[in-house]
């Protein structure tokens, strides 16, 4: 078999960042959020990811600042551990294993040394029942600590962290589940339970969704399924509790949060409107159109920033005057990738549908969303149960000049709105602009759409369930009012009133294959002549794919009856076929290779093959569990130089695929892993500065300098402080006592170069090997350096810390220096 041990499947970015409430640090500089099994640290000002705190082995379910040390943060995870991190340096300080699945973590300043966690009632079952327990931190100083001292506080609580909250600095803890609110007072060690009537006119709609306690006042705010917010007071007794109701949301309140001083209450829900209620007053402020349903709201400890996380994998940072200041956008994941995965040839970004009605362009190399293209261009109504139009098909022209999208909205069985839109890339605005809008291109659903790959021809083919396939061509606008080109229908084809299922162009655009249920028809796009038909019953054709380069005479197809067939178009005969349940057939645009994902026994297997060769190049069993429906080959930025036969197919392009759970995965070779590890070692970033593009530029420059500086660390350490104090003194001296600037300039510049001059001399031989062509430059540099080292030495001599040995050049310089008068300088330095 083929050796393939060095290829492995890796998760490729785009993880959820809206799973749990984000956390803003005390100085409001950083934002921490749980993302899969790691914690990401973002800068609130630049939106860049600064650290990824990795260590958990399962989903991270909560992050809380350490009340004792605001530079540390606790995180809990389903793997049963609580970890303490230093987020500024990204270091794991402590691991506390509890041994149960932890779904939420709470801390309070009042209860030092105690963690409150929510764990399942019974450790072995995945039952619905959860309990809130207090964990006493063991005092041992070790890195790995086990905590077994658990004491139950509340039983039968909701697993969600938003349904539990500490009140009034930790006096009590409130938790809601279903129609019941429980409040536990620590001092009295007593629990009060309050129930709402289930039949509040509209049935059980008034169950609790979230709880938040006022930080200063005895007041609990609860959000409800029907959109009401109740403010509970006087709840330290069973009978005489009261509550007031506020109602703005029309759907469930999904998040509630008080500002640190308790002046305002923030709430959010599916309407994607952030509501700011003034505490104790009737007025409220609204911040509408935040993009998607609000899932969590958090407030920075100083109250200057609000932060909402949204269902479209987005975190919005909002100023306290309700202005959006930053948006951290992850890969938007719906329930399904309706459009195929595509690669934008221009930006090399992955294109798929993102927010409802949008296409997202996601940079795979930077793990960052580049931009969102609004396809539907309609106001999105955030209301549950409303049928929204969404992008169902998209195709990109080979050069990225044209983009075709199909949006669909189905209200009832008969009412179907489909719109075909064609977008032209505008060089000036660097974005796609709507060119043609065709409403209902087919009478029924569009099943497939593809662009002709030929360079000059602009031809689009759509196949619909109405039994036709249509060719659309770019033509002069028939309406003479408007200037420019637009798309119009050029040809309508059908075959025996069968339903077209898929269509595909050959690599040069000279052939079009359209599959009609069981039959594949091959057409010539130039004359619209039916050239040949191919058929391999039983089963409808699912996927179609032409071979490329040397294999361009082959046409591949998969059928719904688990057959993978390869036809030779020259002989019009079946070349070979195998029985494999192929779910995705994807061709590599840069080579002959074709990847086929097949589904067998709950797992997905991958085969990579050339149509001309009977044996697969590479095969891997159980790539992931569940079916794979979408995959794409993305060309690499620079080809790999891998010589192993098994991983050669990954040299020029990389294969990405989306699993059933909407995880974006890719294949990584061993050499690639090595490169990543090497590069991650290099990247030691100064953590006090936020990572900005400018900083990255500078940082790269600094990294180049670093290896050389390592060689003579001692000298650098001795000299640097000296030089810097000299400069400082110089800068602090009043200007009117100093000599003219032209005199000072040379000295000032040279003092900046001190460390280098000493270093260069030592590290020179090494550098010469590497950059022989830069030799001349270096020589001149060296001269300059030696010349410039004058003031340093005077400074050193004045202090009396002269380096023990001096080179000849330095001696010469010293001698020269003796002649010049630097008395003014010593006067300036020691006034």
């Amino acid at each position, binding site marked *: 078999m083929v050796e393939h041990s060095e290829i492995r499947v890796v998760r490729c970015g785009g993880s959820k960042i809206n799973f749990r409430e984000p956390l803003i640090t005390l100085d409001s500089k950083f934002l921490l959020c749980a993302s899969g099994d790691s914690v990401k640290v973002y800068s609130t000002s630049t939106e860049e990811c600064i650290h990824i705190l990795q260590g958990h082995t399962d989903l991270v379910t909560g992050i809380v600042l350490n009340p004792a040390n605001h530079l540390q943060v606790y995180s809990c995870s389903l793997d049963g551990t609580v970890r303490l991190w230093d987020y500024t340096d990204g270091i794991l300080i402590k691991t506390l294993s509890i041994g149960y699945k932890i779904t939420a973590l709470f801390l309070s300043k009042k209860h030092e040394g105690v963690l409150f966690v929510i764990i399942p009632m019974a450790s072995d079952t995945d039952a619905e029942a959860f309990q809130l327990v207090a964990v006493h931190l063991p005092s041992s100083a070790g890195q790995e600590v086990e905590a077994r001292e658990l004491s139950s506080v509340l039983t039968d609580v909701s697993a969600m962290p938003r349904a539990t909250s500490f009140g009034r600095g930790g006096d009590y803890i409130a938790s809601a589940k279903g129609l019941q609110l429980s409040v536990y007072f620590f001092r009295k060690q007593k629990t009060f339970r309050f129930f709402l009537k289930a039949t509040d006119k509209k049935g059980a709609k008034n169950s609790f969704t979230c709880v938040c306690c006022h930080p200063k006042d005895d007041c609990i705010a609860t959000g409800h399924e029907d959109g009401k917010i109740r403010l509970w007071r006087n709840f330290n007794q069973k009978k005489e509790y009261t509550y007031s109701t506020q109602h703005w949301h029309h759907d469930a309140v999904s998040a509630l949060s008080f500002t640190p001083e308790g002046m305002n209450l923030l709430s959010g829900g599916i309407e994607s409107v952030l509501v700011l209620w003034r505490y104790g007053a009737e007025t409220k402020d609204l*911040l*509408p*159109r*935040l*993009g998607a349903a609000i899932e969590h709201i958090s407030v920075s400890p100083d109250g200057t920033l609000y932060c909402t996380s949204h269902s479209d994998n987005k975190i*919005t940072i909002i100023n306290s005057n309700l202005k*959006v200041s930053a948006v951290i956008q992850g890969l938007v994941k719906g329930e399904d990738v309706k459009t195929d995965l595509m690669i934008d040839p221009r930006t090399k970004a992955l294109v798929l549908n993102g927010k409802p009605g949008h296409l997202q362009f996601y940079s795979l190399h930077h793990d960052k969303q580049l931009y969102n293209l*609004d396809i539907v*261009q*309609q*106001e999105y*109504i955030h*209301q549950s149960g*409303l*049928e929204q*139009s969404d992008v169902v098909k998209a195709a990109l022209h080979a050069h990225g000049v044209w983009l075709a999208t199909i949006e669909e*909205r189905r*209200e009832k069985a008969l*009412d179907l709105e489909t719109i075909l839109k064609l977008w032209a890339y505008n060089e000036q605005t660097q974005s796609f602009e709507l060119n043609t*809008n065709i*409403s209902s291109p087919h009478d029924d659903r569009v099943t497939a759409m593809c662009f002709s790959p030929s360079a000059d021809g602009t031809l689009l083919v759509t196949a619909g369930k109405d039994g*036709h396939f249509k060719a659309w061509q770019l033509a002069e606008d*028939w*309406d*003479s*009012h408007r200037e420019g080109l637009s798309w119009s229908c050029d*040809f*309508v*084809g*059908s*075959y*025996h*009133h069968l339903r077209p299922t898929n269509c595909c162009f050959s690599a040069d655009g000279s052939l079009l294959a359209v599959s009609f249920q069981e039959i594949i*028809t091959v057409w010539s796009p130039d*004359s*619209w*002549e*039916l050239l040949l*038909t191919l058929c391999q019953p039983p089963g409808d054709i699912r996927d179609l794919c032409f071979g490329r380069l040397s294999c361009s005479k082959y046409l591949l197809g998969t059928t719904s009856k688990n057959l993978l067939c390869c036809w030779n178009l020259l002989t019009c005969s079946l070349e070979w076929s195998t029985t494999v349940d192929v779910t995705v057939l994807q061709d590599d645009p840069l080579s002959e290779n074709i990847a086929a994902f097949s589904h067998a026994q709950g797992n997905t297997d991958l085969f990579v093959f050339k149509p001309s060769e009977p044996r697969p190049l590479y095969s891997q069993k159980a790539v992931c569990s569940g079916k794979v429906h979408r995959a794409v080959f993305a060309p690499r930025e620079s080809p790999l130089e891998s010589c192993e036969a098994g991983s050669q197919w990954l040299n020029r392009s990389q294969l990405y695929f989306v699993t059933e759970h909407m995880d974006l995965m890719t294949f990584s070779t061993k050499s690639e892993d090595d490169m990543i590890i090497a590069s991650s070692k290099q990247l030691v970033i100064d953590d006090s500065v936020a990572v900005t593009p400018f900083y990255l530029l500078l940082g790269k420059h600094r990294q180049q300098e670093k290896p050389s500086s390592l060689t003579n660390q001692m000298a650098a350490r001795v000299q640097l402080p000296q030089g810097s104090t000299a400069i400082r003194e110089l800068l602090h001296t009043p200007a009117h006592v100093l000599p003219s600037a032209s005199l000072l300039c040379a000295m000032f510049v040279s003092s900046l170069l001190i460390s280098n001059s000493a270093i260069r001399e030592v590290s020179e031989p090494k550098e010469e090997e590497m950059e022989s062509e830069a030799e001349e430059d270096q020589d001149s540099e060296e001269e300059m350096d030696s010349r410039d080292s004058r003031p340093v030495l005077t400074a050193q001599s004045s202090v009396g810390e002269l380096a023990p040995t001096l080179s000849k050049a330095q001696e010469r310089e010293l001698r020269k220096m003796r002649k010049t008068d630097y008395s003014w300088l010593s006067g300036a330095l020691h006034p």
Partner: protein
Amino acid sequence: MASFKPTRIPSYPKLGEKVTQDTLYWKNYKTPIQIKEFGAVTTIDFSPLSPYNCAVTASTRIHIYGPYSQEPVKTFTRFKDTAYSGTFRSDGQLLVAGSEDSVVRLFDVSGRVALRQFCGHSKAVHVTNFTSDRFRIFSGSDDYTCRLWDIPNSVELVTYSEHTDYVRCGTTSKLNPDLFVTGSYDHTIKVFDARTDKSVMTMDHSQPVESVLLFPSEGLLVSAGGRYVKVWDLLKGGQALVSLKNHHKTVTSLCLSSSGQRLLSGSLDRHVKVYNTTTYKVVHNFDYAASILSVALAPEDAVLVVGMTNGILSVKHRKSPEEKTEALSKRRRPAYRVFVKGRNYAPKQDDFLVSKPVKTHLKKYDKQLKGFQVSKALDTVLEPWIRMKTPEVTVAVMQELNRRGTLKNALAGRDEKGLSVLLSFLISNVVDPRFAPVLVNVAEMILDIYTQVVGQSPVVDKQIIKLQELIEREIDLQQELVEVLGMLDTLFATMTTKKEVAAPEGRANGVPATGAQGQSLQAS
């Protein structure tokens, strides 16, 4: 945070003829002035001199109209029988006309009585004209002959009897005083030279020739006869250049625009068609009430005069450019400085700039939609000026409401007046194919909501019945259309089988009907 996205109003393709430079030019005439003549208007001729009076020959009279008067400035009535072919001389002083009584009469435009009477023809004279040296008259008659007369001596110069049927049309060359062209019912067009006693060129039109016309360069000759207009190249010895068949009845009259770039043809099918003389494509079309016998254009295309069989003369004056600018300048716009106010203000160095967000202007209905005021938004788009002038806006807002799931709420709770407005909108637009998918849904909803109030208001009941009738009629029409489509499908199917036999390269798989249609279109 994104801003509110306004409702998208779909732009529908404009139905009907497309707007070109030509249509704009030829539509730029005022509403026609109709003048009733005593009989069919057979000839219209414009004086070549300003003020471009117009001689109209109808029945036994020739009227001369001034450029703007509806009353004739002059009338020649001394005809014993029907007059034909009243034509000005190139100096505008003399007028010649033939007559049913076979006499050719010459008039002074300022006089009343004929200056000369040329007798010699034995039958009606339908065509008369001056040669370009101004001293001779050419005439064609139903006695198959055409003659040349000398004006000063009032004698016949030459007689040509080469035609074998009535000579009904002819023209003289403007460049050569000796050349003239005649068209006859014997299907031929002949070019005569007065210096020889024979025709110098003969062309076969293959229909009775009703009108001939020489291009200003006189290299090309246009003839009309039957349903055809043909263009001949005289310099190539009378080779046929183009044959145009755009009328479905006999073409009776030809005329050139003053630039020579457009050719006009009038026909008994009541149309005047305008051709481009380089491509010979029809660029514009005028419709008239009756069959057209004569067409004429004043110099500069200032007036288009058409004479019809029912004796009505239709005069169209070109709109003067001043009127156009006047209409435009009526709307007062804000002064230029309003727009540039503060635009070129350069902030000083230490000024602190406060950026102001760009304010997007929303339409009224969009503002209401933004505030979820659905009923008010629907009321706004049902205002008369919106629902009459831009029904697509109304329909787009209805669709938007439907998408939001609030259309039913917006439609409900209307009084009699509001409901009748809604119903009248439906009645006028529900069968429009552009709006039908949305409006059918709206109609269903309205009927659902207002079933219990049916019978309470006669106005609403009447409208509902009207709507029902309308929809029934539409259903019948659709059914007929489907039948026609079925018939066409069978036709196409039979065509395809024929093709299959003809093409041996194997369409055994059977090309579908639509595919064949597309192919045949491609081929043609």
